[in-house]
């Protein structure tokens, strides 16, 4: 399935370069996710794909649609904005959960206090 929209040569060059760059950066991030050793190291790698990779692919898509419709079509900026806002929040929650779980496995958290609204069970 090889097809593409009709763009002028300079537009096609820019869009092709941006798409290839974004895909390559995303691949580097995913290889890092696969190859790095500890969880704290692995957490850094995929952010490459979710910031710069996504950014350049979305920029290429924006340029392509703007040229196709011969007006400014930048609705893809919503996806970029949303990912930029949400990726740090999700990864920060995940890092805290991972820290908690590794400390729990190491035995650093012996007895948890009862949660709010929950009475401690008497045995």
């Amino acid at each position, binding site marked *: 399935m090889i097809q593409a929209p009709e*763009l002028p040569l300079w537009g096609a060059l820019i869009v092709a370069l941006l798409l290839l760059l974004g*895909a390559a950066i995303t691949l580097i991030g995913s290889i890092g996710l696969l190859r790095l050793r500890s*969880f704290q190291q692995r957490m850094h790698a995929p952010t490459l794909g979710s910031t710069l990779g996504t950014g350049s692919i979305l920029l290429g*898509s924006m340029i392509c649609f703007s040229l196709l419709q011969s007006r400014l079509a930048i609705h893809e900026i919503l996806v970029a904005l949303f990912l930029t806002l949400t990726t740090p*929040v*999700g990864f920060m929650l995940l890092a805290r959960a991972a820290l908690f779980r590794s400390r729990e496995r190491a035995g650093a958290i012996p007895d948890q206090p009862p949660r709010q609204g929950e009475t401690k069970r008497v045995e």
Partner: protein
Amino acid sequence: MSTMLLAWAITAAQVILGAAIACSFWRLVQGPRAQDRVLGFDTLYVNVMLVIITLGVQTGRMVYYEAALVIALLGFSTTVALAKFLMRGEVIE
């Protein structure tokens, strides 16, 4: 000429993104602990969303953009819910 160049570039980008999906899927399957699997899933949905955006460039239709937006929204809430579950053992307290 320019159409052929763009077509080959889009196909190459899709193949590269497919390799990235394979890497993150392998981390999702293999991951030594649960947090590694969640991290692999997060990377997986971002990569799939990028493939869908390149499909949108390939066909020149708007439908793919909406699918990508829905994937981004649902993927974030899935990651947050899974991280909360790993932290406390329940999602909503």
